[in-house]
Structures are given as C-alpha cells and as structure tokens.
C-alpha cells in the first residue's frame, strides 16, 4: 500500500487539488452540469475504461433503434486530464490507503482501494490485529454506505435544510451558556480524540451529563466484571490457546461480535487440519437459536435464553466441588444440576484447565458474566485464554442505568439541551423508557446522524454526519490497538464527523478533523512525531500504547445474588437479538446487507419470528404465517419461520427492520413491501434479552424471500465430513470411493490405462506433450476448506462489492433471481430431527475443465481460457440461459431485467451509487448471463504486472487473492496457480480431505472442497446415541 502524505494544503486547497472532491464542490463548477450526462464525476481524472464501461451495455439496449444510425459516428466522449497531477496518481492504476472502520465503537483496520480518488473496495489491513487482512460484512458494505444517496445531505433545523455554517453560528450562541443542563447521549466510541473532547465538554458545561447508549453492547459484560472482580474491564479471549471452548449463547464468531473477525480466525486456525497428525479444539455451544458459532460447534445444546443463567450456575456449582475459587456457587441446586452436559463439561473443563475458555452472550445478565468470569478465573484460564483489558474510555457508571436516569431527567423537564451523537434512541431505546416522549420535553435537541432517522426527525437540529471514509478519526481496536481513520474522499455532502461536531459545540468553529486527530497523536510523541505519523498513516495502526491487561482476582464481596433456582415460566419466551446482517438497524439502508441471506435461515430483506418445528406445530403456524406477539401489552405482527435446531417454546426476533423514512432500501424496495418489522417495541429495560410473550396466529400471511427452499442434503454427497477419529482411521474418507464404495465411472479403466482422469467416450482437448493446458500460462484453482467456514457471508458481500453485482430487490429474490456469484449453501444434516447439524458450503463457479455450460452455448459466449478459467464473455452473450440450465452446480446468474439500471440510478439523484462500482469490471446489461470469474480483473492485473516485471505471466503465489478469499476471516478459501506445486492452493488440494463436488460427472472442477472434521466428545456422542 502506498502512503498518503496529508498536509493542510491538500485539505484546504480543495479547489486546486482535485484529488479530493465533494458534490457540493462540484455543484459550483461546470463539470457538475455534466454529472448527469456522464455517469461519474470524473472531473478529477482521465476518463477511465470503467467510467464509460458501465454505461455501455445499457445504452446498447436502450438505443437499439439508434444503433444503425449512431454507428456512422460515435457519440463524443471527453477526456479530462488533471490540471495538476497528484504525485502518487498513475491514472488507471488503483491506490491503496490504510484506514479503519468503527464498529460498535471499536476500530477494524482496513485498506481502501481507490480509483481516481474514489474508494471502491475495502479490504482488511493485515497489520491490524482486529482484521488480520480480513473483514466482516459491515466492513465490506461500507463503500455502499458511503455512496448511499439516501444519506442525509445537509443539516436541518426543525426539518428545514440549512448550511453547516448556520449550525456553527447556532452552536457558538447556544452553547455559550455553560450552565445549561445538557445531556450528551453518545454512541460507543473508542477514539482518544473524541474522548478528549468529551472531557473538555464535561469541563466546560457544569451541568452536563454524558451517557453512552448502544442498543446492544458489552455493558452487561462490563457490569459482570464489576461484580466478579470489582473492576470495569473488557473480557478478551485468546482462542489460539483454547482447546475447549464453551459458548453460553454467545455468537462470538458472528458478524455482530465486535471482535468476531479475530475470534473466528483464531477458532478456525485452532481447528485447521493439514494432515491426520493435527489436533483441533473442541467447541461446545449452549444456545437457543441456531447461530453461526453454534453451527461450528462440535456439540450444541438447545436451551432457552432464560435457562442459560441456571445452566451457568449449575456448571459453576458442579465445578465448585472440584476446584477452588467457586465457593459462592457451591450448594446451588437447580433443574440443570443433574443434566448430563454439566458433568461432561465439568470433566472436560477441569481436564483442560488453563486451556479452556467460557464465554457468555453479551446481552445476558451481568450475573451470568460474573459467574463466567469467576469460572474462567478458577480454571486458570485468565492469562492464557482469557484476559481482561483496562479500557480508558469506559464510563464509570453503568451505561444502561445512566441512560435510563437521563431519560427520567428529560421527562421531568430537568434537561434543557440534548445532544445525540450518532445514536438513534427513538428507534432503539427500550420501549418502557418512553424516550420519544421524554425527548419532546426537551427544548433543544441536537443530533448527528448519517440518515434523517427516527431521532433526527424529532430533533431541533440535525447535522448530517460524515462517513468514516470521508473523515479523519482515530480509536482503538477491541483488543486495544490504536489506529487512525484516514479519509479516502472529501465529504460528499459536507458532513461533520463526530469529533468535528463535538468540537463545533465546544468552540463554535468548524474545525478540521485532521487537526484534531493530529493534535491527539502529536500529544503521544514528544519527539520524532512526523516520521512516526507517516508510519501510522501508512500502516493504519499505532503499535504503541495498547490497552493493558488488568490483573484480576475474585472480589471478596462476590456472591450469587440472584435466585439460584430460575425456573422457566413454561410459556413461550421471546428473545430479541441484533440482526445478523443489519445489526441494530443502522445498516438497514444498505441493499447489499438487506439482500445478504441470513447465515442460518437464508432469509433476505425481512425479519421473521424464528421458532422450532415443535413450537410451530403447537401454535399451528407454518412458514410465512403472520403471528401476533404480545409482550407486556406491546405487540408486533410478524411472519413465522421454522428454524430447525431452535429451542422449543422460544421465539427469536431480530431488530433493525421496520425502519421508517430513512431511505429507499430500508423502507421498501422498488414496488414491493419489504423491510420487515420493528421489534424494538417488545424490548424493555427489565427484559433486554428475553421476556415472556403471548403468541397468537392472525391468519394472515406475509411473503418471505428465502434464497434456499430446500434444506436437506437428501442423502447426497455434496457435503462430506467425518469425526477426527474417523479421519485418522481413514484419511481418505472424503474421496468418492470412500463415500460410495465404488470409483467414479471410468476411473477403473483409467487406472488400467494409467491415466489420471476418468476415461470417457469423448476425446479431450490436448496441447503438445499430452497436457491439457498450455504451460506458459498459470493454471488457476481454488480450494474451500469446509472445516473453516461458519457461514458468515462476508465472501458474498466482498464479491458483490468487487464485481459490481446488483441488488435485485425482494421481489426478484422471492422469484429465485438473486445475483450473488458466490452463495453460501446451508444444509441441515443428521438423523435426529430435533438436533440437526447445520453445515455451510460456499459455492462459487467451479471453473470445470470440462465445463458443461460451455458446450451448450450457441454463440460461444462461454469458453475456456488458457489459464484454465471458465470465461463468461458478457458482450457475446445473447442470453439463452442454456448454460445456467446445464450447470450442475447452478452457479450462473442471469440478468432477467436491467438490474444494474434499477440499482445504479436512484430516481432524481445523480447516479452517485455508481461511484461504488469497480471500474475494472463490466456492468452487465439485461439479458446476459454472469457468474464468478475467479476475480479475473485481479488475476489479469497481476499477470500483466508479473509479465512486465519478470517476463512470465505467472504471478508469485499469494499475489492474486480473490475478493472472497481476501475477505474470509477464517482463511477458508485458498486460490492460486496449480502449476506451482508449492502454492498454497496446491498444498490444500493435496490434503487428504480434498474432494470435488459431483466428481462422477467428470466435469473436473478447478474449485474443490476440503471435507469438514468434527471433534466430538465421546461422552456426549454416547449420550446422543442413548437418546
């Protein structure tokens, strides 16, 4: 990556230096007028291929009648070179800059790919400990958020558009009264600059109160450590050292966990099987709803969320007799005391003392976290698999309590001004607090947010927030690495970042975020700052001053306060969780995330009431039947969905849907009702995770767009797995012969003829020396390790971002026309209907050497390249769909409509979303087929670079990473040159577990799978058998 040397000059001389650009700036110059004619604001750079590329196929279709005439003379195209060329920019070559994305207040290090000044793709920063080079779905979707045309575009005063200068003027007058009673309600933020400003604010305003409010977060975990250790610290796991992991309803690998990328990477690394000699960790999951972590576990126990607490105490109690430090739990007797799992887990944890880790779901009570902390401490895990970090920006008081107190103050009229920073409590606050009502008691409400959201509409002042890709910022990763946020583009709508916003409130001036951040960092270094700063910007991370580990001991006052016997009420309970693809709703307007299938249910565009088959039968409902869920007088109507593996008598609801008025995507897409139901009204302060509910069937039905209709493998062999013992006994368990007991047809004859591939009636193409492919080219191949995939779906989003895959909308998904080039199949397997195992299998194009799709194309639009890829030539395609029919893997996607047009043109707006498009990939027009290309644009770029540098078009191993591979947090996907025997992918393919899907068809896929290995505990396996 290249480093960017930002100077004041670059920031201030926007006009001269066209590298940075904003729409408002454009509005004043004449390029802006052409903005709608051309599809990109390419004022800054030479018109690239990509710029006009995307328009072409569309124009071809729209003006077919004109084609004959227009062919005589082409339309005039203009090239706009730089006036003064920035030093780093080589027109046509992308630049890469480090930055970071704040997620739940913690930073994840990223590298942004920029084309002529517009970031188009985000990758993980391999130097950053929260990323290790990979990303989660929200990181990938951030580019779309940046170019979201529905983002708020200007400050609003009582709903009327004003300028940011007006706000500065207001701030300097209104906030000159330092004695007013101000409540600051902020999102979680780890930024040292921000927290510095927070302290300044609290110093300046005598009667100010500051609360941090997040609808989901680590509040309970922090309270738990307070109870257990008397310290408000962060729990950080190091699964690299954990041989046994117990998750108590904690989806720590999932996208919503603030440290999910790292945890997933660690867990997968601990379970990687390169040969039969390797060992792997064992994971136990106790959970109510099926989570990706649960699907990755070796053993999974279904418990209602309300039972987790009792289960935890029963476990602690069982351990208390055998190890020291858990005296507080001795004598607890509850319904789980005699549970088979308790004794098995106790044995397992004790025999792995110091090498085990127990985690609890973030929303569980503080007492549960306290108990888990005590157990981890007693087991000697602290320091090995668990550490506790002192986080400087944690507030002293309980955030949730503080928030409730502030709301109470607002209600009673004791607050004059409320400042809301990046948070949306009108939408997300627990219903019993009555936040909206409380807010109406406050005379001045100032809000900073990306969208004119529910809270912004109730505010006196709304300030449009700058996206993190537009602003300077800083912060810490979850594990405490200090990082910077480096802007990639000038704010498109002149928004303010949260530090600029606070600074304006403090000073009344519009300060530049760059100065604020640089000041913070220059404070850290008394000498040599400039060089240090350059390194920090280049690396995106400051290696110094990370969080320090707290030494913890059990608080002397620690005791189990809550009732030891928490008998569940027996009724149906409702559990409310953040959505696996939209989180708390802040990403609801991002089409990529709306259309990303839920990892476990494969539902897009909506939330549903997840329930077990038994519960559904008891309620007499089926998929898509609308049920009314009533909790303490509040009710929502939502479609039911049967989730195998869900605990009985429990319903899981996701938040984040049912948003109103924030954008076209979140509200409704095209002409079809989507966007789900707001479930926050069912949440209350006393029942933040679960509460008892009454369910009734309404008799209505609501269509749900689920991308997978069939969830059983039907006994087929697409997915292969074995226990580690079986693997060691029979390392070749995954081969076709092992699975079926006989060879692939034609293979026996092939052995006789000493050939490697099955013999068939058909001749194959041969190059000289009897090889199938020319030697002067690399031969690409991919291996997907099923032992690492837990179904998060980031590969899907990364591919969507890299390859300009359109969003098609709920209606089209419902019709079965989703466009994702890589999909993540999820099957439920196993003989036990109540305890199905969920498995994940990513399926991109297999790039078959003997591709069935190629033979049937009448116009040779899909053929084979010399580097062994199945090529799809869009501009030759006439759209017979025969190739898709004839693909046994069903990986081809057809543009039934002009999806890119609907997706890229957003009504009356300039087509700003097009700026998110990768200029190196053709936008596909209506009527053409498309599919995974192995990211051929990356491959070809690498080949050209290698050819120029070395004379050979074979790039060094690792030079080319496909988008899915690069994004994958568990490194499940490997890609590279098969002619290089030492390449990572060749190594992976030589693994015993390597198998080809549908090998008997003799399509010879270049993409193969490594079978999954599970590590069950014999004690529990027996248990299941006995049942």
């Amino acid at each position, binding site marked *: 990556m290249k480093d960017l040397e930002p100077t004041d000059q670059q920031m201030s001389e926007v*006009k*001269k*230096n*066209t590298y940075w650009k904003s729409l408002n700036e454009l509005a004043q*110059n*004449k*390029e802006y007028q052409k903005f709608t004619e051309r599809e990109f604001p390419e*004022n*800054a750079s*030479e*018109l*690239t*291929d*990509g710029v*006009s*590329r995307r*328009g*072409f*196929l569309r124009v071809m279709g729209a003006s077919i009648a004109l084609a004959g005439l227009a*062919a*005589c*003379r*082409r339309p*005039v*195209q*203009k*090239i*706009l*070179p*730089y*006036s*003064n*060329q920035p030093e780093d920019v*080589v*027109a*046509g*070559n992308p630049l890469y800059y480090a930055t970071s994305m704040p997620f739940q207040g913690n930073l994840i290090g990223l590298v942004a790919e920029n084309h002529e000044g517009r970031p188009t793709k985000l990758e993980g920063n391999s130097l950053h400990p929260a990323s290790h080079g990979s990303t989660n779905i929200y990181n990938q979707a951030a580019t779309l958020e940046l170019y979201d045309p529905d983002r708020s575009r200007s400050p609003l005063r009582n709903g009327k558009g004003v300028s940011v200068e007006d706000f500065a003027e207001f701030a300097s007058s209104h906030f000159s009264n330092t004695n007013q009673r101000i409540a600051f309600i902020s999102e979680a933020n780890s930024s040292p600059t921000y927290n510095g400003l927070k302290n300044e604010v609290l110093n300046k305003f005598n009667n100010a109160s500051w609360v941090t409010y997040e609808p989901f977060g680590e509040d309970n975990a922090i309270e738990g450590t307070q109870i257990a250790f008397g310290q408000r610290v962060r729990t950080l796991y190091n699964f690299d050292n954990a041989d046994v992991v117990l998750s108590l309803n904690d989806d720590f690998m999932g996208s919503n966990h603030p440290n999910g990328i790292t945890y997933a990477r660690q867990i997968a690394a601990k379970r990687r099987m390169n040969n039969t000699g390797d060992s792997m960790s064992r994971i136990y999951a106790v959970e109510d709803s099926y989570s990706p972590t649960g699907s990755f576990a070796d053993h999974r126990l279904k418990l209602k969320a309300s039972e987790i607490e009792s289960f935890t105490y029963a476990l602690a109690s069982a351990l208390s007799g055998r190890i020291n430090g858990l005296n507080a739990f001795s004598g607890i007797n509850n319904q789980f005391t005699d549970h088979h799992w308790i004794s098995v887990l106790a044995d397992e944890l004790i025999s792995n003392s110091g090498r085990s880790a127990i985690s609890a779901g973030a929303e569980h009570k503080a007492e549960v976290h306290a108990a888990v902390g005590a157990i981890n401490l007693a087991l000697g895990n602290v320091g090995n698999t668990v550490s506790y970090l002192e986080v400087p920006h944690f507030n002293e008081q309980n955030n949730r309590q503080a928030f409730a107190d502030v709301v109470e103050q607002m209600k009673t009229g004791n607050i004059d001004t409320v400042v809301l920073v990046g948070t949306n409590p009108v939408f997300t606050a627990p219903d019993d607090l009555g936040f909206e009502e409380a807010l109406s008691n406050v005379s001045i409400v100032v809000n900073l947010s990306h969208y004119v959201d529910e809270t912004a509409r109730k505010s006196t002042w709304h300030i449009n927030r700058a996206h993190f890709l537009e602003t300077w910022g800083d912060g810490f990763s979850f594990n405490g690495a200090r990082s910077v946020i480096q802007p990639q583009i000038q704010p498109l709508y002149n928004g303010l970042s949260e530090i600029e916003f606070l600074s304006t409130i403090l000073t009344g001036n519009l300060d530049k975020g760059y100065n604020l951040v640089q000041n913070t960092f220059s404070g850290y270094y008394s000498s040599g700052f400039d060089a240090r700063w350059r390194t920090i910007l280049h690396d995106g991370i400051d290696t110094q001053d990370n969080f320090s580990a707290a030494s913890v001991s059990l608080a002397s006052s620690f005791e189990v306060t809550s009732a030891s016997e928490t008998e569940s009420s027996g009724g149906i309970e409702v559990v409310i969780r953040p959505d696996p693809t939209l989180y708390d709703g802040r990403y609801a307007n991002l089409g990529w995330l709306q259309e990303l299938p839920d990892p476990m249910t494969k539902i897009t565009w909506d939330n549903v009431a997840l329930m077990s088959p038994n519960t559904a039968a008891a309620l007499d409902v089926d998929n898509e039947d609308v049920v009314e869920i009533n909790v303490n007088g509040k009710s929502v109507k939502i479609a039911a969905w049967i989730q195998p593996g869900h605990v009985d008598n429990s319903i899981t609801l996701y938040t984040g849907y049912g948003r109103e008025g924030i954008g076209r995507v979140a509200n409704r897409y095209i002409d079809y009702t989507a966007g789900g139901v707001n479930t926050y009204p069912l949440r209350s302060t006393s029942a933040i995770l679960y509460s008892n509910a009454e369910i009734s069937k309404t008799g209505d039905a609501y269509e749900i767009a689920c991308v997978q209709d069939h969830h059983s493998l039907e006994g087929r062999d697409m997915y292969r797995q074995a226990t580690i013992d079986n693997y060691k006994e029979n390392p070749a368990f995954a081969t076709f012969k092992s699975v079926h007991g006989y060879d692939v047809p034609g293979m026996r004859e092939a052995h006789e003829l000493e050939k490697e591939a099955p013999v068939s009636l058909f001749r194959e193409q041969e190059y000289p020396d009897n090889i199938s492919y020319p030697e*002067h*080219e690399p031969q690409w191949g991919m291996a997907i390790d099923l032992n690492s995939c837990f179904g998060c779906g980031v590969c899907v989003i990364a591919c969507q971002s890299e390859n300009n895959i359109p969003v098609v909308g709920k209606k089209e998904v419902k019709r079965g026309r989703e466009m994702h080039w890589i999909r993540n199949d999820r099957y439920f397997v196993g003989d036990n209907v109540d305890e199905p195992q969920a498995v994940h299998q990513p399926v991109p194009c297999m790039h078959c050497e003997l591709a069935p799709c190629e033979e049937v194309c009448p116009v040779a639009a899909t*053929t*084979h*390249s*010399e580097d062994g*890829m199945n*090529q799809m*030539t*869009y*501009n*030759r395609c006439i759209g017979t769909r025969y190739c898709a029919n004839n693909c046994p893997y069903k990986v081809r996607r057809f543009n039934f409509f002009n999806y890119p047009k609907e997706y890229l043109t957003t009504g009356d707006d300039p087509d700003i979303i097009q700026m998110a498009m990768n200029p*190196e990939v*053709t936008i596909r027009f209506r009527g053409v087929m498309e599919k995974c*290309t192995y990211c*051929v*644009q990356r491959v*070809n770029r690498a080949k*050209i670079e290698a*050819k*120029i540098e070395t*004379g050979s*078009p074979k790039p060094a191993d690792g030079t080319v990473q496909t988008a899915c591979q690069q994004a994958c947090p568990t490194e499940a996907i490997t890609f590279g040159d098969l002619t290089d025997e030492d390449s990572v992918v060749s190594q992976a393919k030589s693994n015993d577990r390597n198998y080809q899907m549908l090998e008997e068809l003799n399509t010879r896929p270049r993409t193969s799978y490594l079978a999954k290995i599970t590590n069950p505990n014999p004690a529990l396996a027996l248990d299941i058998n006995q049942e």
Partner: protein
Amino acid sequence: MAQIFPKWTNQVPRKILIGIIVLLNVVVFGIWYFFSPEYTDVGYAPEQPVPYSHKLHVDQLGLDCQYCHTDVFESKQANIPATQTCMNCHNIIQTESENLALVRESWETGEAIEWIRVHNLPDYAYFNHSAHVNVGVGCESCHGRIDKMEVVYQEEPLSMGWCLDCHREPEKYVRPVEEVTTMGYQVENQLELGKELVDKNNIHAPTYCQGCHY
C-alpha cells in the same frame, strides 16, 4: 381463354433471380464495409479544444511520446498529460499565444481541459497500454503516424478482428521495446526479428475471451 400474362413475363423470373443475386451481393458488401469500424471509425478527427499539433511537437520538435504520456509503461492508460505538463514549456515559450488560452485558463483555475477522445474502445474491452508497450507493440501500430498528424485521427479500425490479427501473429508486428515510441519504424527482416522477439519477450498474446473481456 385469354392469356393472363403477356409473353414478356416469361423473362421476368430470370430477371428477378439475377436482381436478387445482385441485391444480396450489394447488401452483404454494404454491411461488410459500411457497418464496419473500418468505415465508421477510421478517420475520426474531432476538433480539439486546444489545437495541439502532434506533427509540430513530435516531428519538428522531436518530443518523445513518453514526455507527455508518462504512464504508458506503468498503467493501463497512456495518460493525457496534465495541464502542468504543457505549462512546463509554455510558461516560457508562446506564453501569449491565443491557441493556448484554454491551457493557461486551466492552469489558473485548476479545471480540466476537455479533450475529445479519439481512440475509443467499447467499455467491455479491457485494453492495457503497459501490457503492450512493455513487450514491444509500437505506439504507431495502433495509433498510426501520430508524428504526421496535425489533428489526431483514428488510423486503425480498432475492431476485434483487427486486434486478433496481431494477437494471432504477433511476430508480424512486434519491435524491440526500445523502439516502441519510434515513428516510422521498419525493418526488412520483420518476420525473422519478430519471431526472435516473440521468443525473447515470452509473448503469448491471448486469443481467449478473458484476455480482453471481463
């Protein structure tokens, strides 16, 4: 019974047949020629906002292509020079020229000069300059004798068939990498030399689709 058709009508079918044959030939030839880039694109010479003369700068003043198109060996694009590049010299010479008014304006305001694109490939055809010039495809092979052009025009059809001519038989066209920017390069033993260069530079010009389309 009266004759329905006069006697001369017996000649009509033959005439119609000949007519159809002639017409078909005309149509085929017409489409083949008039609908091809050879006819539609070659010779496109739009008037540029600044009357920049390649003939003057290249032929008479002897500037190398790379003086202005600096990125051609590094990037997929042979960049159109920034105004800055013009001003390197025109700060000093021809500072008052009317023809250069737009250049000076651009330099002062920072706004781009809107050049008209001459050589334009369809958006689905991915062409990389660096991949070509680094293995000895000369500028003039595609752009013609730029040094003789007062106004730049399109010399070659830039059609797929035309690209394939060279991709199939690169030895007919390649030259030593040092000679890439040479105008009017010609050797007698092109085929022999070309074959040597193809071997030396390990040229395997792709003729599969993904070489250019993705």
